[in-house]
């Protein structure tokens, strides 16, 4: 019995229970209570399996391998759990678990709910199998399963033509991803006669001069890039966000982070190219471009789900920047930011889902005044917004601060000023994110209630509980970044910088030294920079005492001063109008970003022009991206 529950079987159990749950939900899901219990059971079992692996993998440093005996002759079809894959698996299962609590608490579920629950579990299982997979073909299959489930969830979201259109575009982009990944895997198999990641790790570095291997790199990079919604595939973030809120959480955060995980496996393990400055440049440049483009797309967005989709993609791109630095501090900061992205993006999507479900509207122009109707949802949304904007002491600030420092340290260490400008762009994106959330908060929660929203009610207790869990984690991760570092991000970083251990665990001790010659175990040399200064508890304590002092002094003045006779006049504030000749209507003035958008009118109109709904354009961009990547790998590898 104890052998059955050995750690080696837990990964396959975690995946199987989700697919079984999906099957049973499809069979018996017509009754709400049954589908809810099945979904909660499946995702909680899966999450529990992953938690059970924390001790041996994260703390003990083990690499757990599971291989189906009947398939072992194929030299693949294995699952592996090292600290890096477990980190992402924990993110996926935790997000699925908390989002499932939200999903089962939705009061009025529509006809598509049984199918939605089934697809939700397939999506979770697909992403989980993707990150735990030990061979490139299983990765491809599971990426496809997850991508199709995400697309289907958008299609069945019950949000009319817009959702169907988004699902169709996601399907086309998913098809492009299929072509890239399958072609890349096929080329690798044709050259190396294996699909096992560990075996490929030993073989590929010796074949790197082969042109077809270089093309395989470009195709796999582009394929994972589609999954991660990187530029020029960022429109997928908008399409995936059109699904229900839990689906958006998984597809825009977990699946996209899965794509970034794929890129890390590709660059750090399969091709081991991250020591080359050109590949560091590639990751940082692609990450920076995606981050800036997505945040500016969010600034000009009009729909709540669309804006959040772009913000999620922008924040995920920051993770890629951190990984591109290829320093232990950068990687650790990137993993921490991935964790935080998952938390605040999930919180924002669920809060937005609560609003859209209650009002039936997504357009910022049609929403307003909901702060009074849904005060708890408003408060939770603000926590998510502050976290995403990198406001202290929330989690987004803690990881953003680490990435910024890592970029600067890398710039000094490598002598390349470009890394410092990446840090500056990262900071600029944070400020633009904050401005975007001011606009969203203003449009959704303040102002008069629009017609049809008079009877809106606060989210149910279960929905608020799910959002509350994410909000609490956002605050805790911001206040206690060291805890996440010790148990999650540092073991993940050590695993990412220790390819030899991964190879030895999968293929037997001594394989790595046979392939690469004698080496010093990288993990023993890994150190983390502790020099940064940020003490959130001390700052909060000072803030609280200052707040009490200010409040006390104000109360004292209020009591002791006689009442002034005249109407108040704003002292010290800038005049509202200095006799300018421009005149704008109230509606225009209501947009707090109008000065930014009018100041950069050319940029925004260019963005509008190149982001057409034409699918041919999307395919053209994809082909251009793949061609550029091929050219890059031909030159740099």
């Amino acid at each position: 019995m104890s052998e059955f529950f050995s750690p080696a079987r837990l990964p396959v159990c975690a995946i199987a229970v989700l697919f079984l749950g999906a099957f049973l939900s499809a069979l018996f899901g017509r009754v709400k209570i049954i589908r809810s219990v099945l979904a909660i059971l499946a995702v909680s079992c899966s999450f529990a399996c992953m938690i059970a692996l924390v001790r041996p993998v994260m703390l003990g440093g083990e690499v757990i391998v599971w291989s189906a005996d009947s398939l072992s002759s194929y030299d693949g079809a294995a699952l592996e759990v090292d600290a890096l894959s477990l980190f992402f698996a924990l993110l996926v299962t935790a997000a699925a678990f908390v989002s499932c609590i939200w999903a089962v608490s939705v009061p009025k579920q529509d006809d598509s709910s049984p199918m939605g629950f089934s697809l939700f579990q397939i999506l979770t299982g697909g992403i989980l199998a993707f990150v735990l997979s030990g061979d490139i073909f299983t990765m491809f299959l599971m990426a496809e399963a997850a991508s199709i489930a995400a697309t289907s969830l958008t299609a069945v979201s019950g949000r009319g033509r817009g959702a169907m259109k988004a699902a169709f575009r996601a399907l086309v982009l998913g098809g492009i991803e299929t072509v890239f990944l399958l072609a890349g895997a096929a080329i690798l198999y044709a050259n190396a006669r294996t699909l096992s990641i560990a075996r490929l790790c030993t073989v590929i570095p010796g074949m790197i001069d082969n042109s077809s291997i270089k093309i395989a790199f470009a195709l796999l990079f582009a394929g994972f890039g589609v999954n991660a919604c990187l530029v020029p595939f960022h429109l997928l973030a908008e399409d995936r966000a059109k699904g229900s809120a839990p689906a958006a959480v998984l597809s825009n955060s977990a699946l996209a982070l899965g794509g970034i995980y794929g890129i890390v496996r590709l660059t750090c393990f399969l091709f081991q190219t991250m020591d080359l400055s050109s590949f560091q440049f590639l990751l940082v440049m692609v990450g920076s471009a995606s981050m800036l483009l997505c945040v500016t797309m969010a600034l000009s967005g009009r729909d709540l789900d669309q804006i959040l989709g772009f913000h999620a993609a922008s924040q995920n791109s920051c993770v890629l920047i951190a990984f591109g630095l290829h320093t232990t501090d950068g990687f650790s900061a990137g993993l921490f930011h991935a964790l935080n992205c998952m938390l605040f993006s999930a919180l924002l999507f669920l809060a937005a889902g609560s609003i859209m479900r209650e009002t039936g509207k997504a357009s910022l122009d049609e929403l307003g005044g909901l702060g009074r109707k849904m005060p708890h949802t408003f408060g939770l949304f603000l926590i998510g917004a502050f976290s995403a904007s990198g406001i202290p002491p929330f989690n987004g600030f803690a990881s953003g601060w680490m990435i910024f420092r890592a970029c600067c340290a890398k710039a000094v260490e490598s002598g390349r000023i470009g890394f410092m400008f990446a840090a500056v762009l990262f900071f600029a994106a944070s400020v633009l994110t904050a401005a975007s959330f001011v606009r969203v908060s203003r449009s959704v929660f303040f102002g008069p209630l629009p017609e049809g929203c008079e009877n809106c009610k606060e989210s149910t207790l279960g929905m608020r509980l799910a959002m509350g869990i994410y909000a609490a984690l956002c605050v805790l991760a911001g206040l206690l970044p060291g805890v996440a570092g010790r148990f999650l991000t540092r073991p993940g970083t050590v695993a990412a910088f220790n390819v030899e251990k991964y190879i030895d665990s999968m293929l037997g001790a001594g394989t790595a030294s046979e392939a690469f010659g004698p080496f010093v175990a990288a993990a023993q040399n890994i150190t983390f920079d502790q020099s940064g200064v940020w003490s959130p508890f001390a700052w909060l304590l000072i803030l609280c005492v200052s707040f009490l002092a200010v409040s006390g002094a104000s109360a004292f003045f209020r009591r002791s001063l006689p009442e002034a006779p005249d109407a108040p006049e704003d002292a010290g504030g800038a005049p509202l109008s200095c006799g300018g000749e421009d005149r704008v209507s109230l509606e225009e003035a209501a947009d707090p970003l109008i000065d930014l958008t009018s100041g950069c009118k050319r940029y925004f109109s260019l963005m509008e022009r190149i982001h057409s709904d034409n699918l041919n354009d999307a395919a053209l961009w994809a082909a251009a991206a793949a061609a550029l990547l091929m050219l890059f790998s031909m030159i740099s590898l």
Partner: protein
Amino acid sequence: MEIVKSVLLDLGYILIFPGFLFCFLGGTVLSGIARRTAAELRKSGSPALIQPALDFFELCGKETGVPAPASRILVLLGPFVGLAALIAIQLLIPICSFTAFPGIADTLALLCLLAVPALAEIFMTVSADTPDAKARLRQQVTAMISCALPLVLVLLAVGMAVSRETGSGMDFSLQNIAAWQEEAGCLLFRFSMVPAAAAFLLIIPGVTGMQSFDTAEIVDEAGNGGSAQISGIPLAVSSLSRSVRMLTMTSLFTAIFLGGLGTHVLIADGLITFFFCAVVAACAGVLTVVFAERLKTGKFFLFYWTVVSALAAISLVLAWYGL
């Protein structure tokens, strides 16, 4: 006994110097200096140096008023959180070689902490939801976005200059920057840091809300103009916050460009720092009239992200090459 003494000392820092009382007095006087300088240049009536303090007391005496559609909690809480955050920031900025609470936040953290009072004020304005508030929101959001980029470039330039000299990695600690200036001389007198200092001076009017940039006049078709406004204590605290922001920004300028000129006697160091802050505030007043006031809102953002950022970037590049 030691613990009680330490707690009392910390409370003294927070409540008196360089905390609440110092922020109130210093902030209002510096704000008065900047406004008076600007008024002198405009050749309009010069307000008294203590006018911001008088305004504060006058507003405190008014009945607290919150417009009907506004969120009462945000209007009442926002200004207090904003002012408390500014005081908490002031406590982390070195006064010559003295820092009330060292080792809590470096310059990068401080940069992000500056967003807390800005957002507190923005959310107070958002919640007011009057036509006047809409116009002010545009100003506040534009100012927040505009000043962030040049400010981060200035701080990077300073960090780079210090790290090049010390030969260590990037140092973002304000205490270390001040201590290094004590040994090596003020950064302001280095050729490479002059553009960064100029950029910082241009940032001050933006961050402190001094810039009365040319906001488009709002046409309210419904005719229900800005009659319903926030008044009383929240407005008083909000106006005090703007004054304290002047102290925060000028003392940050003094710490990073004029650090190391102290005497190691706290009172004397406080007076020296305040003198420099007053000079910087006067410069900010001049720059408000010369540059910031002439900008239309759309141009304001571009000016800061191009001209001011370019100045800071020049310093960063010069410091990068060790010039």
